[in-house]
C-alpha cells in the first residue's frame, strides 16, 4: 500500500531542488570545459574527451532509469519531476560524445564514419543507442505527451531500455581487459529493468484489476 510521502517537492522547495539538480547535471560539463581551457586533457585529448563524455552519458542513462524505482523505494513520488531533466542531460552528454566522435575524431569525414559504424560492432551499438534517444528527446515536452496520448508516449519512451542496453554493450565491447565498469553499469541497468518487470508490472495489473 502506498504510504504518505515523507518528502514533498513543490513550490519554493521544488525550485531550489531543481536548481540544485541542474547545477549537479552541469558540473561534469563545466569540469570538462575547465580542463580543456587549461589544456589538462592528457596527451591524447580526443580520447580523453571521448571517454569523459561517454562515461557521463552512461551514468545519466542509469540515473534516468533509477528515478522510477527510487520514487517507489524511497517513497518520494515527486522524484518524477526530475526524470525529464536528467534524461535530457543524458541526451546532452550523448550529443557531446557523438560530436566528439564526428568532429574531433573524424573531422566529419562521412565516408570513414559510415565505414566505422558498419564495421566496428561497438560503434554500431553506440550509434544505435544514440539514434534511439533522438525521438525521446524530441517528444519530451508536455505538448508531445498530450499529442501522443499518455499510453502511446509511454510505449515510445520504453526505447530508453534499448538505449541503456546498447550503451552497456557499446562499453563492454570496447574495453580491452578491465571489464569492471561495463559490468557495474550492466548490473545497474539489469536491476532497473528487473525491478520494472518483477515489481512494477504485477503492481500495475493489480491496480487495474
Amino acid at each position: 500500500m502506498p504510504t504518505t510521502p515523507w518528502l514533498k517537492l513543490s513550490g519554493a522547495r521544488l525550485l531550489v531542488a531543481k536548481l540544485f539538480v541542474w547545477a549537479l547535471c552541469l558540473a561534469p560539463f563545466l569540469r570538462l570545459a575547465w580542463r580543456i581551457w587549461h589544456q589538462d586533457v592528457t596527451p591524447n585529448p580526443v580520447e580523453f574527451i571521448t571517454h569523459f563524455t561517454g562515461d557521463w552519458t552512461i551514468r545519466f542513462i542509469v540515473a534516468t532509469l533509477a528515478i522510477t524505482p527510487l520514487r517507489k523505494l524511497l517513497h518520494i513520488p515527486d522524484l518524477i519531476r526530475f526524470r525529464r531533466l536528467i534524461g535530457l542531460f543524458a541526451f546532452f552528454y550523448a550529443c557531446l560524445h557523438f560530436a566528439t566522435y564526428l568532429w574531433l575524431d573524424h573531422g566529419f569525414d562521412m565516408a570513414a564514419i559510415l565505414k566505422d559504424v558498419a564495421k566496428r560492432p561497438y560503434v554500431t551499438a553506440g550509434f544505435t543507442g544514440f539514434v534511439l534517444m533522438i525521438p525521446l528527446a524530441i517528444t519530451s515536452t508536455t505538448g508531445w505527451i498530450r499529442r501522443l496520448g499518455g499510453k502511446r508516449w509511454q510505449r515510445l519512451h520504453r526505447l530508453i531500455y534499448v538505449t541503456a542496453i546498447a550503451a552497456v554493450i557499446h562499453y563492454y565491447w570496447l574495453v580491452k581487459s578491465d571489464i569492471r565498469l561495463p559490468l557495474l553499469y550492466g548490473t545497474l541497468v539489469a536491476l532497473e529493468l528487473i525491478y520494472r518487470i518483477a515489481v512494477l508490472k504485477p503492481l500495475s495489473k493489480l491496480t487495474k484489476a
Partner: protein
Amino acid sequence: MLIKQASDLRHSDVTPKSIYLDRRKFLAAIPAAFLAGKEMLSPSARALAATKLPNLVKSPLSTTGETVNTYEDVTHYNNYYEFGTRKNQPATLAQKLKTSPWTVSIEGEVEKPLKLSMDDIMKLAPIEERIYRHRCVEAWSIVVPWAGYSLSELLKKVSPTPKAKFVAFESLYDPKVMWSPSEAGIQLPYVEGLRLDEAMHPLALLCVGMYGETLPPQDGAPVRMVIPWKYGFKSIKSIVKIKLVTKQPPTTWNITNPPEYGFYSNVNPQVDHPRWSQATEQRLGEGQKRLGIVVPTRRPTLMFNGYGDQVASLYAGMDLKKNY
C-alpha cells in the same frame, strides 16, 4: 647524450616534487595559489629518482627524420596495467614501484646462467641513445629517445645452447603495490616472448633509460625491452627474468584474448585488429588545433612500423595474416 640547456628548462622543471605530487591538496589548501601558481598544475616535474646517464653514445640504429615526443607525453600516457588500466594512472600509481635493489635472472637453455644487478646491467655494454618509433596496438604512436643496448649483447654473455629457440621474459609482480589480475583484467606476472632470432636482432633493445636519464617507473623502470617493429605490448616492462626456452612461450595478451593478440604482433597495416583498423595511427602531439587542443591527424601506419628493411627477412615466407 642529451645535455639539458638552460633554455630547455621549463618553470615546471623546478617545481619541487613534493608540491607537484601533492598539488591537489596544495591547491585546495591555498585557493589564492590557484591563480598565482598555475605553473604548478603542469604535471611535468620529473621524478627525482631519475638520474642522468653518463657517457651516452648516439646510435647509428636511431630512427632519423622524426620529431621526438615530449617527456610529458611519454610519462603521462602509459599502458602499464599493473598500475591501472587508464592511461593516466601509471604516472601516479607506479611511483610505488621499488626498483632498487633489482635483480634480473637469465636462465634456461644457456651455458652460463647469470643473476645481474642493475649495476651489472648498466656496465655490461656501452649505453646508446636510440630514437625509435613506438606503435601501440591501440593505433596511437610516439617517438622516444630510449637508452640501452641490443639484447644480443646480453644473450651472447650467457651463451644460449643449441636447443634454445625462444626467449621468454617476465615482469616483476609485486601484489603489495600492483593491481591484482582481476582488477587489471590480465594474468600477472606479465610475460612476453620472442623467437631467438628476433631477440638477437640488433634493433631489439634492452632498455634502461630514456631522454638521457634512467627510466621513470611508469615507463617500465628499471629495465625493459623495446622492440620497435612490434606493437607496444611486446615491449615488456620492469623485467626480472629472461629465460631461454625450446618452445614458443605463453604471452600475456595472447592468453587474455587469442584472436585479438598474436604471439608475433608485428606492426602490420594490412592486418586489422578485430575491433579496429591498423591502417592508420594517431601520432601523439601531432595534428591541428580544434577548440584550442591538439587533435591528432591520422597518419598511415608503416609495415613493421617502418623497420621493414632491417627486419622483414626474419619473416621471409611466413603468412603474416595467420601469424598475426
